[in-house]
């Protein structure tokens, strides 16, 4: 496993120079991505969404929020490690404090009192850490079942899966059960949102691609608002 991980990183570093800097709206793999995106959407419409709707009928909203907080809390130590890997000690400390506080005062993480105290979560992963290390994103890539990604985020996702602690110490049935619960619960919480995006977009595929790339860029820079050096071209009126 570790060898595979090392191999991935070195491959990525070798391949790095052929990728442009930062994510753009270029989509060289569109021919692959679009069919994959509609495949995912079909799976969603016929399998995941109906299951999530059932879940949403049975499980009260407050419980859904708690389940989501519980899983987020389990991730906190991992966020902390990534804070360190990204040389962001303050952020690592916040993640650590959140884990201790929410596990105790938040009753095993089912509640999130630390957010009310101003310690907001920051969800970190290897895709973001790689970006901080200077590895470019590479082209946008839609993965089967997993959805929007890039070459870098795919490598990151693989590293995430390998490095997740429970994968090593706990029988396989637990991760399968917990992933299923989390997936359905998250989807249930996003029922309205997905419907909104489908309705509000004129081209759903492109709206999701652009939204994903913008959002990842913000996460990598650990900002929640507009970019500091906003894209000048975006706000320039073409006068000729």
């Amino acid at each position: 496993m570790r060898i595979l991980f090392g191999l991935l990183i070195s491959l990525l570093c070798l391949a790095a120079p052929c990728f442009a800097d930062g994510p753009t709206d270029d989509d060289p793999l569109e021919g692959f991505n679009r069919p994959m995106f509609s495949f995912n959407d079909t799976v969603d419409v016929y399998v995941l969404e109906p299951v999530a709707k059932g879940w949403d009928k049975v499980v009260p909203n407050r419980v859904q929020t708690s389940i989501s907080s519980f899983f987020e809390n389990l991730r906190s130590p991992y966020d902390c490690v990534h804070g360190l890997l990204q040389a962001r000690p303050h952020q690592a400390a916040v993640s650590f404090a959140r884990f201790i506080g929410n596990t105790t005062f938040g009753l095993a993480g089912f509640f999130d009192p630390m957010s009310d105290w101003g310690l907001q979560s920051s969800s970190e992963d290897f895709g973001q850490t790689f970006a901080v290390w200077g590895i470019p994103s590479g082209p946008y890539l839609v993965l089967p079942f997993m959805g929007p990604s890039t070459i870098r985020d795919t490598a990151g996702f693989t590293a995430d899966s390998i490095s997740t602690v429970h994968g090593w110490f706990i029988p396989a049935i637990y991760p399968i059960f917990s992933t299923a619960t989390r997936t359905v619960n998250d989807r249930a919480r996003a029922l309205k949102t997905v419907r909104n995006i489908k309705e509000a977009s004129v081209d759903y595929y492109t709206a999701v691609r652009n939204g994903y790339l913008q959002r990842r860029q913000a996460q990598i820079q650990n900002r929640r608002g507009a970019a500091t050096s906003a894209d000048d071209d975006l706000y320039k009126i073409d006068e000729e």
Partner: protein
Amino acid sequence: MNRLLSAASLAVMGLLLTVSAPAKAEDSPSLVVQRTGDAVTAVLADAGQSVGQKRHGVEAIVYEQFDFVTLSRLVLGRNWKQLSPEQQTQFVEEFRRHLSVTYSKNIGDYKGEKPVVTADRKESDGDWTVKSKIVRPGAEDVAVDYRLRQSDGRWKVIDVIVEGVSLVANFRSQFQEIVSKDGAPKLIDMLREKNSKGESFKSNVQVGKN
């Protein structure tokens, strides 16, 4: 993916909670955003109004405070010049209607969210970015930034950025593909068709628990 989705849905609220009240020429960008955000919130929280009345109220406020012509030009980018003046007017109208039709579906879902301006800064081109958060009871805040540009002596909103995702950039990306493949008139037709469909569904707006 889910974070992206929730961000996008909150864009919806962000847009709704944006702006209002007759502004004076000397109002700063921050003041414009805060005051009008409060005005929209007041409409949304008014139990005496139907969803339809609220939509009209919010529309009036947002239409007053957004510079939809500039917003449309930015969204179309270079393609704006390809449109005849008549098509440009049509595009602004249909795009504005598109935002209204789709985002107003969430009006019935208001649950006490409050907009709070947190900071502002001047951009190199003279625009201002006003940073705000939407405080939601029992949920994490949502970061919503507004970019404002001065026109006729008043600051008007030209972009909304929700959790780092710019509305202008997102629509530009979508429209770019459509215009380069099928041309601008096709885009206007698509918007118009989607809008009339959206309007007819409007009567069944579901005020569910989600």
